[in-house]
Structures are given as structure tokens and as C-alpha cells.
């Protein structure tokens, strides 16, 4: 009798462990597929239009040129407004980030604490805009499956980031995120992003990302226009030399 119970118990434990293991593996696999969708192009360039809306409905528009190569090289250069024209941010492998302010005629290294900050008054933090694969920053756990969505919980591998966790709603069909919810270190939901993708050539391209800061009732809609993929951008485009020009 005891043996029967032991076998049943072990079988149940094995089932639980296997379920947990498979779930973790599946979630990690899903996240890697998200990265493949988000970063499958060799390179990308375009113009980001950011529309900021405050709780009174007042809007401001900012425009920046963006270039990206692989998952870890990104250059963003502001076109407007005039007060920010020429300000540029270079993101490189190894968590290196540089800021170029034309008024000072030199680049400045951005300390990693700056990644906690909002990017140029938008609701995106520098960390949100980092060109790094999700799977290199987060471990994923499946929360649930819905009809068309996987709902994953992403926990930062490095705890020094802005968020304690992110809940990501991933399209089952195309593996791009449809919505992400961001939680602060105290566990409060602080931001929510909704995505709209469309196909440009063979790639899914984020036409629009709407980020809402739930505490401030402030939103930023980021639209990507004039987007081009695989134009043959070289690593030379992502250097200090190019940043300061």
C-alpha cells in the first residue's frame, strides 16, 4: 500500500516537474521566437515619430532618425523639436551607451543608471529603447495561454533594471508582442505598451507602439515611417565617429 502511494506520489511529482520544466522551456523558446521576429532583419533604418500626450490632452511631437544593426547596435538622432535637434544616442554591445550633445561638441558616456530615465520626455525609458534581445535580458515563464496569445512573465536577469517584471502578451500566430505591462520594484503596474505590427517585405515591422505611463496618465505613440530593412548598413555606421557627425 505504502509503495503504491509512493509510486503515485513520485509520478505526480515527476508530472509537476516535467510540466514546470516544459513550461519554462516553452516560454524561453517563445521569447527566442519573439526575438527572431523583432530582430530578424540584418539591419533597419527609418524615422521614428513620437507623439506625446499629457493628461490634459496636450500633444507634442518629436522625430528621430533610427538605424539598427543586429540586436545590439542602434543609433538614434533627433530631427525635431528644434531644442533637441542633433542630440544622438548610440547603443553598442556590452551595455555601452553614448550621448552626443551638439552644444558640447563631444560625446558622453551614459551611466547605466540613466537607463532608468525616460527618453527625451517620452514614456519610453532608455532601457526600453535598448537594442538588446529580450532573451538576453529576461527569463520567461508562461503564465497562461489564451486563444490567440501566450502570456509570459519576464523577469530581468540583471536586477538593476527599471522593472521587477514584465507581462508580455505574445501573438501565437506571428510571435510578436501585442501588449506588454511593466511592473516596478514594488510590484505596481506602472506602464503598458500596445503594439501594432505590419509586414514590410518579409519582416514584421512595429508600425506603432503606444506606451502609457499609468501613474502620470501620459502616453507616447511611437510610429515608424520610411522604414527600410537589410540595406547593408555596416558596423561603421555605429561608431563614435558617426555619432559626433
Amino acid at each position, binding site marked *: 500500500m505504502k509503495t503504491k502511494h509512493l509510486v503515485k506520489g513520485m509520478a505526480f511529482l515527476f508530472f509537476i516537474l516535467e510540466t514546470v520544466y516544459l513550461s519554462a522551456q516553452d516560454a524561453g523558446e517563445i521569447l527566442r521566437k519573439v526575438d527572431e521576429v523583432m530582430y530578424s532583419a540584418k539591419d533597419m533604418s527609418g524615422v521614428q515619430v513620437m507623439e506625446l500626450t499629457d493628461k490634459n490632452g496636450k500633444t507634442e511631437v518629436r522625430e528621430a532618425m533610427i538605424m539598427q544593426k543586429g540586436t545590439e547596435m542602434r543609433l538614434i538622432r533627433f530631427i525635431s523639436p528644434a531644442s533637441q*535637434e542633433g542630440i544622438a544616442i548610440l547603443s553598442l554591445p556590452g551595455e555601452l551607451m553614448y550621448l552626443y550633445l551638439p552644444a558640447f*561638441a563631444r560625446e*558622453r558616456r551614459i551611466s547605466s543608471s540613466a537607463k532608468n530615465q525616460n527618453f527625451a520626455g517620452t514614456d519610453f525609458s532608455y532601457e526600453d529603447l535598448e537594442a538588446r534581445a529580450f532573451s538576453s535580458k529576461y527569463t520567461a515563464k508562461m503564465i497562461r495561454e489564451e486563444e490567440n496569445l501566450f502570456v509570459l512573465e519576464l523577469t530581468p536577469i540583471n536586477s538593476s533594471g527599471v522593472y521587477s517584471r514584465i507581462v508580455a502578451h505574445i501573438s501565437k500566430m506571428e510571435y510578436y508582442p501585442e501588449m506588454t505591462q511593466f511592473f516596478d520594484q514594488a510590484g505596481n503596474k506602472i506602464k503598458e505598451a500596445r503594439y501594432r505590427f505590419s509586414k514590410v517585405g518579409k519582416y514584421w515591422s512595429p508600425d506603432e507602439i503606444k506606451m502609457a505611463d499609468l501613474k502620470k496618465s501620459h502616453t507616447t505613440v511611437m510610429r515608424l515611417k520610411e522604414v527600410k530593412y537589410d540595406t547593408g548598413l555596416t558596423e561603421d555606421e555605429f561608431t563614435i565617429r558617426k555619432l559626433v*557627425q
Partner: protein
Amino acid sequence: MNRESSGPKPLLLECLWVFLAIVPLSSLAGGTGKEKPVNSGKESTGLNISGELFIDQRIALNNRREWVWNENRLSCKMKKIQGETVRFYGEVWLRNFGVPRPGSVSALYDKGNADPVQAEIREANIQISGFPFKRSDLRIGRQRLAWGTADRLNPTDILNPYDLEDILDFGRHRGSDALSFVYYFNDVFSLQAAYIPVFRPANLPVGIFSGIFESPAVLPGGFPVISYSDTLNFPQMRQFKDATYGIRLKGLAGNVDFSVSYARAYDGLPLVSENRIFPATGQYGVHIQSTLSFLRNHMIGADMATSIGGAGFWVEGALFIPEENFIMRTDLSSLYPQSPVSLISDSLIVCTSQPVLKFIAGMDYHFRNSTYLNLQYLHGFIHEKTRNDLNHYLLIRFEKRMFNDRLNLAPLSGAFVFSSLNRLKNQYALVWMPQITYSLAGTTDISLSGIIFHGEGNTVFSGLKRRDMLRFTLNYFF
């Protein structure tokens, strides 16, 4: 003074000059055609004009409440990209600056006296990318050569002359008519060589800040100074002997951005090389006639910046080695013509065997609640030339941004200056500059700040005691 160079010959710059002279300009048009253009994808653009209207008004917080600063500046920045390799950049300032002080009615016939206007070319240069090598950039014309990684106060940033007009605008430099060549070994290592043929001195603080770099004359016998005149002994303009030049290697090692640099340059602020004292006729006192000369240094610099535990750290140092001893001669012989002994004495001001190290160390941190802290320690300000002159400067800026960066409060901003811990009570200065800035629609910044000076002794800022002011600025960007 003998101003013949005792330093190394500027061989590198001569080679660079010669090389540039013999490289055919036709290579600008695409070279061999085998090399891939550096700015691939860039197209020619029309002339892009942007700029700023800057209004700066300051009022003294004394009983007279007078306006102590009046600046209305229109700066225009022009940019044009020509083809794949040539970029033009220009920046011009047009401004009404200062208050009219015509001395006579005849002066009013000149509109410039009634309404002072200044025009200034801050920068005007052409940069040729990929010339003469694929991995090099050449920039010719008036330009800013910003060296160092510290925040605004850079001991190694000595190629351009200091623009000290507004002493509160730390680190402002004018452009220099220069030739700059940068060779990029790879994505992170580069070597820059810069050559500035004509020396231009620093311009001194004006208005309420004028005279803050001057030391009071101490005379034997306590004679009062009736008048003072000076002559500036300006360097000659020989092709290489009097030129400013420098070289800088820049790179990234591990997580550390660094650079090492060398420059040979005149110090932009002159030193007194001779004082002649004459008795005043019919009065008790003296006239002082001074000659001032410019000291030339070899500068060996190094700087680094990194990020540790989320905070940014930087260190930058410059070792100034005078090219020759700088001696100040004092001549009292006219004061005591009957003296049986010589009344001409020499004092060694700066010595070649005593290099001066100026350095800065700083850190900054962005807190999660949109606050920012920046701390710096500086040893040796711009005007301090000898080891004994060097003061200690603790600088702080604490900011809090609100309403999606529209409002910026900087309640703690300023500097504490002291010469030594032993003399803290009677030799210090405190500058406190609380500031509030509001940004409107990304085009306009309005700022109000107080500038409070406090101190004792003769540090550069303690001399500004009782010159507290309220400052209003407006920046409109277009």
C-alpha cells in the same frame, strides 16, 4: 624674455602638412573607386539652418538693483552635406551685449555706441570624411576641438581659447582656425592630430565679472597705486614655433573609455613678466607699468570615463610642463633713484622643473524618481598657474525633473572653493546657484536662477561677494 623654443620639433605636424599638400585633391572625388564610401547612403542636402534666440538678463541683488548683464543673442547654425564625404558647418552669433556707455555726445553719432552689437563667427569649417584615407576625417576651418571626458570642466581641453566672458558659463571655448585630422584604427581606437597656426588668447570676463582674475598689487612701503598701465607681449606668429598643436589617442578598454593626449600650447591668460614702478608726480603714490607675456606649456593629458554600479565616473588630468622658466622682474629704481644698490629684482614665477598637475574627478547618478546628482572635484582652475596657486573646487548639481521633463528644479547647484583645509575659515568661497527651468513644447526654455556668492580671502569667487544676482534666461530654438 627669451622665447626660443626648447621643446621638441613639431615633426609630426610638419609631416602632416607636407602630406596634405602633396595628396592630389582629385582623390576627393572618389579616389580609386575601390574603397567603399564612409557615409554610404548619405545624400547631398540643402543648407540646413537652425539656431537659437538666447536672452540673458541679470539684476544685482543689492540696494541699487541695477542690471548687471544684458545679452540678446541670435545664434545661427548652418549645416550642409555635400555628396558622400563633405560636410560644412558654421555657427554665427549676432547679439546685443552689454549696456551703452557713450562717453560724449559725439559717440552717439555711432550707432554701435548707442546700441552695442556684436557679430562673431564661432565655427565655420569643412569636414572631409574618408580623406586622405578611408578611415580618416579631415576638418579645416574654424572649429571646436573639444578634448576630455569630464563634465564641462576639462583640464585637457586647451587647444581652443577659453571664452571667459561669462565666468558662470564654465568650459565655454571659442573656435580656432585649425586643421584637424582624425584616423580611426577601428571602431573604438582613433588618433587625432590638430594644428592651430595662429595663437589667440582667452577673452577675459566682462561686466560684473571683470577683474576677477587680477591679483591686487602689493607694494613695498604700502604706496597707494595712482594709476596702472600694461603692455601685452604677444607671441610672434612663426609657422610652427608659435603654433598650437596636439595629438590625442582615444579608445575603449574593457568598460573604460579613455584618451591620452599631448599638446604644445600657449596659456591663453597672460602673466606679468615685468613691473616698473614710478613715483606719481605731485601726489603720494605710484604708477605701475606692467608687461605681460604668455607662458607656453607642454601638456600631457589623460582621461577616462566608465560606469560602475549604475553610476558614471570620470577622471581627467593634465600635467603642464612650462617650456621655460617664467620670471617676473620688478623695477623700483625710478622710485629710489639715489639708492646705492640695485632695485631690480627677479622672481621665479613658473619653473620648468615644477610641472603643474590639474585634475578633475567626478561621478553622476540618475535616480529612479527623475532626480540626478552630479559631483565633481577639481584641483586647479583655468587661471591658476603654479602649484601654490591651485585651489580645491567641489562642485555639485542636484536636479529633479517633473511633468515629463518640462519642469527642472535644481535646488542644489554650485561650488565650494578652498585653498587648504588649514585656512578654511579665511580662504574660501561658496557659489550657490539654485535654478528652475520650464520647457514649452520643445522650443522654448525659460529659466530663473539665483546666484549667491559668499566667501573670504582672495579666491576667484570670494572676490564676487556682495555681487549676488537674479538671472532670467530664455532660449527659443528654431
